[in-house]
C-alpha cells in the first residue's frame, strides 16, 4: 500500500499492466516523450519503447480506429483521447464500431480496448476543456463506462478495464488528478466494473454521485450531520454503465430519500437514468421526490471564474437540496 494521487495511481497501473502483458500498448496524442499533456503516461516510452507507446497524429478517429484494428489482431490497446471535449471525431469508431462489434458478429469478434480520457471542469478549461459528456456514451449498449475518482478505485478499475474483453471508456477527472489521494494497493486489487461503493453509510437521505462531486457531496453530508444531525448515505457509482442496480435500489429503499449529484448537465444525464430506475423499481419506498443537483443547462462551462463557479454544483448547492429533501 502507498498513498497516491489519482494521476500516479493511473500511471502506475499502466506500468504494471504493460510489464505483465506485452500485448498492452498505449497510443494517443503526445503520450510518448511528453508523457501526455497531463503527464499521465510520463515515463512509459522510456521503459516500453516507441513501438508500445505510440505518439499518434492529431486525429482522434484514427486513435480509436487503429486501436480497434490492433485489438482485432491480438493486442490490448489503451487509446488516450487528450480531452473528452475532443472525442467527437472518434464517435463513429466508438459508438458504431467498438460498441457494436460483439453484437453484430454474434460474439465471433470482440473489441478489448480501453479509451482513457480526462473530463470535467473547475480548472478554467472553459467550454472545450471541461466537458462532462458521459451521457452520450452511457446510453450505448455494448460499451462500459467507468469514472472512478478515488486513486484506489482508478487502480482497480483500470486493471479490470484492460483485462476486459469489451470496450471500456475510462473517464479521469482532470481536477482530481493532483487533488485526490488515498491508499492504493500494489499491483493486485482489481475492482469489478458495475459495482458502486458505499463511501459513507447513513439512514436519512442517500446521495448518489460520482467524480469530483463525490468530494463535494461528502462535505455537504458532513455539514448536514453537524447542523441537524441528518444521517446521509453517500454512494460513489464508480461505474456509469452498467449501473449497480443493487446498490442504488438497496440504498433508496433503506433511506427513502434520494439526491443525485453530478457535474454534467441534468437533462438526459446519468442521474436521469438512476432516477428512472428508482422510480420504476422502488417507488413504494420513497418518502420524497427524487432530487438532482447537476451542472447548469447551458452548452458548456464558461471560462471566467464567476461563470465557472456558477456552472458547477458545489457543497452549498448540495446542502440546500439536502435540507429540502430532509424536510419531507
Amino acid at each position, binding site marked *: 500500500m502507498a498513498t497516491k494521487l489519482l494521476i500516479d495511481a493511473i500511471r502506475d497501473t499502466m506500468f504494471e499492466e504493460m510489464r505483465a502483458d506485452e500485448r498492452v500498448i498505449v497510443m494517443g496524442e503526445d503520450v510518448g516523450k511528453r508523457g501526455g499533456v497531463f503527464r499521465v503516461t510520463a515515463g512509459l516510452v522510456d521503459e516500453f519503447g516507441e513501438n508500445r507507446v505510440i505518439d499518434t497524429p492529431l486525429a482522434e478517429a484514427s486513435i480509436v*480506429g*487503429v486501436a480497434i*484494428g490492433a485489438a*482485432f489482431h491480438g*493486442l490490448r490497446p489503451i487509446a488516450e483521447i487528450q480531452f473528452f471535449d475532443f472525442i467527437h471525431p472518434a464517435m463513429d469508431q466508438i459508438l458504431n464500431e467498438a460498441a457494436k462489434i*460483439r*453484437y453484430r458478429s454474434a460474439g*465471433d469478434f470482440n473489441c478489448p480496448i480501453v479509451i482513457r480520457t480526462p473530463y470535467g471542469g473547475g480548472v478554467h478549461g472553459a467550454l472545450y476543456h471541461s466537458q462532462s459528456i458521459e451521457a452520450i456514451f452511457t446510453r450505448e449498449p455494448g460499451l462500459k463506462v467507468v469514472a472512478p475518482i478515488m486513486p484506489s478505485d482508478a487502480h482497480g478499475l483500470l486493471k479490470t478495464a484492460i483485462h476486459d474483453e469489451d470496450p471500456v471508456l475510462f473517464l479521469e477527472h482532470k481536477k482530481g488528478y493532483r487533488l485526490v489521494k488515498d491508499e492504493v494497493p500494489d499491483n493486485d486489487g482489481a475492482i469489478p466494473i458495475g459495482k458502486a461503493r458505499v463511501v459513507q453509510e447513513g439512514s436519512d437521505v442517500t446521495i448518489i454521485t460520482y467524480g469530483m462531486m463525490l468530494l463535494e457531496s461528502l462535505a455537504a453530508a458532513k455539514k448536514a450531520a453537524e447542523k441537524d444531525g441528518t444521517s446521509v448515505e453517500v454512494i460513489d457509482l464508480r461505474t456509469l454503465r452498467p449501473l449497480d442496480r443493487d446498490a442504488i435500489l438497496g440504498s433508496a429503499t433503506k433511506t427513502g430519500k434520494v439526491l443525485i449529484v453530478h457535474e454534467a448537465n441534468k437533462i438526459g444525464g446519468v442521474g436521469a437514468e438512476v432516477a428512472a430506475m428508482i422510480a420504476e423499481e422502488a417507488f413504494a419506498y420513497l418518502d420524497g421526490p427524487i432530487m438532482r443537483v447537476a451542472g447548469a443547462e447551458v452548452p458548456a462551462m464558461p471560462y471566467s471564474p464567476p461563470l465557472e463557479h456558477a456552472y458547477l454544483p458545489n457543497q452549498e448547492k448540495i446542502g440546500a437540496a439536502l435540507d429540502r429533501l430532509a424536510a419531507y
Partner: protein
Amino acid sequence: MKQHDSGGAGLQTRDRLPAGLTDADLLRMYEWMVLARSLDERMWLLNRGGQAAFVISGQGHEAAQVALASALQVGKDVLVPYYRDLGMALVFGLTPRDLMLSLLGKKGDPTSQGRQMPGHFSSRRLNIITGSSPVATQVLHGAGVALAAKLRGEDTVAMTCVGEGGTSEGDFHEALNFASIHHLPVIFVVENNGYAISVPQRKEMAVASVAERAAGYAMPGVTVDGLDPIATYVVAREAVDRARSGGGPTLIEAKVHRLTPHSSDDDDRTYRPAAELQEERAHDPIPMFRARLMELGVLSEQQEKEIRDRVKAQINDATEFAEQAPYPDPSELMLHVYGA
C-alpha cells in the same frame, strides 16, 4: 503513381503469363468470378421475388476482387472488406450457403447470425474482419490489424477495401496517413466504379484518379484496370510482396464498373444515362476474361460448361439450404451485448 493498363495485348501466349500464374490459377480465378456473379444474380432474383429484403451488389467488380484476394495468403492474411466484396469473401472461404443464410437473415449465418444486412462479410475463423455500414470506418481497422501484425513480428498482410465514394471520408485519410508513418503491411484497395450511389466521380473529387492521392502520404499509388484480373493480380502481388517484406503500404485503385443500381432499394435510371450503362455492360469483365482464356487456350468449351454446371449446382443448393433453414429464435435478440 503508376498506371497499369490491361496488358492484354502482351498476353497472347500462355508462356507469357506473369507473376507465376499457372493455367490452374487462371481457371480458379475465373470460376470464383462466375460464382460471385451467379450468386449475386440469384440474390437479386430472391429480392425481386420478395424473399430477400435487401441486396447490395458486386456485379462488375468481380475480376478486381478475385484477383486482389488471390494475391493474399488465405488462412494467414487478413481481409477488411466493404459491402461489395462478395468475390473476396468467396476467395477467403465464405461459402454460397453462408452467404445465402446471411441474405435471408437465417440462423447459422456465420457473418452475424442474421443481425446485419447482407453484404457485411465476417468470419474470425477465415480472417475476414466484421464491418459496419458507415463508409470507410473499416479502413482504419486495416491499419490497426497491420500495426498489430508488425508489433507481433509477423509477416501477415492486411488488405482493406472501400469504394471511391468512401475516399472522401476523413477515416480514409487518417488511415493512409497512419499506415504510411509506420510503414505498415497494409494494402488499401479502392474499387472505383465512378459512382457514390448517384454522385459521379467528378463531384466527389477534383483529382483525376484516387491513386494520385498516394503521393500525399509518400506511398506508392497504382491505378489498374480492374476489369482485367491478370493485370490486377500483378499489381496486387507487387503490393503484397512489398508489404510482407517490410516495404510498407500501397494504395491500389481498381477501375471497375457498377453494373447494377447501388442496392436493391436504388433506381439508377434516375441518374445514370442508359448509354453509359450499356457501354459498361459491353465490357463486362466475366465474358471478357472468358474470351481471353479461350484465346489463350486455357479454357475449353467443355471446361466452361463444367464450371457453369458446378456453379449452378452450388447456388441451387445454397438457395434451397437457406430457404429451409430456420430463423433465429427471438430469444437470441439479447445475446452477445457483452462477453461473459
